[in-house]
């Protein structure tokens, strides 16, 4: 178990896996935000470099 100083100073994060979250993976938890993202991307596309 990492202590709080290690957590706070780490750029690459320390992750704990939680099987309870597996059931959320394929659910869309924020449908309105996703809809907004799709609308904006359809309208403006991607940066020229892409």
């Amino acid at each position: 178990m990492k202590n709080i100083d290690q957590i706070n100073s780490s750029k690459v994060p320390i992750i704990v896996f939680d099987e309870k979250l597996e059931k959320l993976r394929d659910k869309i938890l924020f449908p309105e935000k996703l809809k907004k993202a799709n609308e904006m991307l359809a309208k403006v596309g991607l940066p020229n470099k892409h």
Partner: protein
Amino acid sequence: MNYPKYLYRSENHYKVYEFISEGKNGSIKKLVQYSETGTKNIYNLAFGDYDEENKNINDLTITNNGDSLKVLATVASTVYAFLENYPDAMIFATGSTSVRTRLYRMGITNNLAEISNDFNVYGLSIINQSWEDFIAGEDYEAFLINKKEKI
């Protein structure tokens, strides 16, 4: 971002994260999700409060838990986790309100030097309605972030 952040949990595809905000209004469960958009390799970043009682998520709640910087630093940290595992992905982010979008812009601005070491950051110009390299002080409607290619 070298700020205090919460320890978070993830499922094993690194697309959903959970952490607990601890503040003056108590303990509030937060969920972060990276969802595939209709554009290949572009994922939408969203986060909000999980309401244990009603079993639903609200990204419009003003939690006012006194830890917004710590919450933002934690969400920013999930960007590192996600892009480590999906190096070709781009992350799209916008606030659920214009105030939130400004808050994200300030968060990026305050950490731009560090963020720019690892990531390309683009802002969607409100005026031009097109993407440009993120410039501190400009007003943006949304953001795109991807990992810089290391030579």
